[in-house]
């Protein structure tokens, strides 16, 4: 009995020792970023047509994670670029990602359906790198990561809700990629605080296997969901019914903490927009002021929609137009190109028909840029 007890204690000590050693080695090596580059997508399963995002994995066969390497490795853009491809990267928020839209109905899907060609005869292939978060910092983060995939052109739909400086760092995807964001802040002298307390900087303990279990599980589930993505083509749960975007509005003139009459340019992250343009370098960038729902309901004389009071949005459009003119980069303002009935559950989410209308305008502008 006593011998048994000693053997058990010895065995438990060995197991505990092995556990500690493995975790310590894992924390020191930190293999999670490298692991992110390992992917079954584009090899066993087809690459995704938009970045992984989902809060209902069981029905969407998709999930949200913070590992940019894993996210991009699962995307079709990670596949080698064919010689006859003119690669267009589309970044932006949920409207670009295609909320409640099948892949063929997203902006990228609609643009691809046009089978456009570049002046040198290469076929345009548009990659949807939108991500359902409204923040220019997030867009810049994505663009910075995406530049390794050799784009020939970048299309960047933006909207006022992505601009407030105060919210640039308030999203988990940004907070959990602190080193990359700090690098952007440093390289482009951005006004954001590199020591923002919301940044997630894992301690040694949090870098162990136990501490990284969420990241590891997310990576694993992303690979497993590849099978369902390949088998069904589903990457989003689109409900039969949803609550439509608000048309009757409050007579509230606030935009975040901003009040009329004047929108302060300093409160908007034009520095991040410029950083994005700088990241692109010589690659042409088309900035698009994306369509918004223009309500005709109650208090629509005060507000365009749930997001925007008229005074703020009108000033923003003027500022953006001026800013883009100064930058010398192509700019397309299509804020009113989609009629009110073609919006779904939000003032920036469009129906398939609305998406086609937007694609028509952008395709026309791309053709103009080619000339």
């Amino acid at each position, binding site marked *: 009995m006593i011998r*048994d007890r000693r053997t*058990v204690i010895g065995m438990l000590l060995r197991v505990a020792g092995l556990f500690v050693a493995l975790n310590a080695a894992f924390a020191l090596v930190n293999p999670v970023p490298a692991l992110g580059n390992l992917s079954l997508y584009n090899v066993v399963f087809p690459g995704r047509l938009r970045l992984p995002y989902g809060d209902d994995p069981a029905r969407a066969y998709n999930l949200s994670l913070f590992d940019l390497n894993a996210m991009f490795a699962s995307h079709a853009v990670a596949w080698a670029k064919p010689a006859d491809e003119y690669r267009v990267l589309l970044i932006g928020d949920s409207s670009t990602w295609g909320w409640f839209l099948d892949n063929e109905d997203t902006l990228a899907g609609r643009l691809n359906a046009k089978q456009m060609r570049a002046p040198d005869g290469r076929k345009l292939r548009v990659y949807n790198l939108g991500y359902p978060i409204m923040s220019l910092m997030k867009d810049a983060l994505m663009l910075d990561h995406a530049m390794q995939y050799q784009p020939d052109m970048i299309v960047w739909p933006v909207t006022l809700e992505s601009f407030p400086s105060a919210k640039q760092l308030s999203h988990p995807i940004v907070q959990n990629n602190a080193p990359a964001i700090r690098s952007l802040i440093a390289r482009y002298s951005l006004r954001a605080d590199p020591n923002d307390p919301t940044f997630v900087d894992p301690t040694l303990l949090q870098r162990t296997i136990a501490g990284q279990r969420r990241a590891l599980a997310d990576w694993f*589930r992303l690979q497993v969901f590849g099978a*369902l993505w390949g*088998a069904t*083509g589903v990457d989003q749960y689109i409900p039969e019914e949803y609550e439509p975007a608000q048309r009757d509005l409050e007579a509230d003139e606030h935009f975040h903490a901003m009040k009329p009459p004047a929108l302060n340019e300093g409160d908007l992250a034009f520095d991040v927009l410029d950083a994005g343009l700088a990241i692109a370098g010589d690659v042409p960038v088309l900035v698009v002021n994306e369509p918004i729902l223009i309500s005709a309901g109650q208090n629509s004389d005060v507000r365009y929609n749930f997001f925007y009071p008229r005074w703020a949005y009108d000033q923003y459009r003027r500022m953006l137009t001026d800013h883009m003119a100064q930058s010398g980069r192509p700019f397309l303002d299509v804020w009113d190109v989609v009629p009110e009935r073609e919006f779904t559950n939000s003032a920036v989410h469009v129906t398939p028909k609305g998406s086609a209308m937007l694609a028509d305008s952008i395709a026309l502008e791309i053709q103009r840029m080619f000339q």
Partner: protein
Amino acid sequence: MTNEIPLSTPRRLALSQAHLRNSALFIVSVLAVFLVQPATPIRQLDFWLPFATLGITLIVWAGAGGEWPLKRGTLADAAVIAGIVLMIAALRYIDPLSAIITRSRPPDILTVSLALGVVAALALASLHSIGPKPARTVILVVLLIALLVILKWEPLTRNLSAGLRALQSQSVASASAFDIRWLGFSYIAFRLIGSLRDRAAGKLPAMTLREFITFVVFFPALISGPIDRADRFVKDLRAPFAFNLADATEGARRIAIGAFKKFVLADSLALIALNEVNARQVFPGGWAWLLLYAFTLRIFFDFAGYTDIALGVARFFGIKLPENFRNPYLKPNLTQFWNSWHISLTQWIRAYYFNPLTRALRQRNVSMVAIIFVSQITTMLVIGLWHGITPNFVIWGLWHGVGLFVHNRWSDFVKSRLAIPPERANLQRAMNIAGIVITFNFVALGWVWFALPTTTLALTVFQKLFGIG
């Protein structure tokens, strides 16, 4: 003056440890019946279903022989059960603890006391019922089968739900078969029926109330088996017990393997396994096969994982539950598959249905082929119905029944005509591999019926699998 051989000290110690272990298993198992029962939309049903499990077990123990006059130990065990039940009911009055064992607040103690009285009266009536013992056994078996039918047949379960809802003054219109989730009852009912049949055949050893209750609701095997036999289980309970490293190591190994199968393999495969939703969405061809194979492996790892955990936990207490799986997907034919898949269920069905039926048919001078056909088809039908009384489970049972019959006829045919000489080992190996592949795919295709709720959807998946339409 007795001539008993005095016990050695280690043996006495082992017997006393066995006694302690048995007491612990008895109490923990009774508590586990309440602990594992999930919440239900019907008020207090999460208390009454486990209560009914214990009540029915007590009545069956009495009906299967019990003992008379009742010994002091039996009365003490009955008092322990009643005490546990009343203690759980009493938690109702201690607010922070009221749902610590049951999922919701238990019923009031007066109602529970009355229900205990009813169960005691029924158990006594079962001990002293008028008529011969075989009739008593038949009545109890029929009642248990009727209860299983009610729980497995959706319209009846829904009606039962409506009745229970009416009793609780809840909305009858919202009644659903999903309201009544009696966790583990399929296994419990088969253990009870098996015990009654064994008693009728004179094979059931006399068991104390404590032994019988522990056997029926043994906590490691409560949720998903295996379905042990009372005579085998009671031998382990009565054997001397001393904690030993070998058993503990083996138990821990099985638990670790089981946890890996269940929580890593099965739960990962569950993400992509064929189900009602993705069956409609899946593209035809290879992708549909991928989902089907994922389901095929998932159901095995899930079930085998649970079994490993049950066997491992039981092993810690010196109980060697029977194996339930022996590499079923690596068997070269369907007969061997069913000898290694859910073994305890197939053995149960063989002992209490297949063998008696075959004997009965033989006595009626039915041809051997007809006996094989009828017994295999109906046996698999019973196994299908045990999972649920739905068209798809019936088809699944028939699928395997026909498969077993065809294999039986084929092997009979091959044995006499295509015997492979021993020197052609490679050919034998190739035949074996081909057999494994065919059997695996036959079983996998059978799972289509099992995994999906409607025949139409199952047929749609078959079309997608074979690119038809």
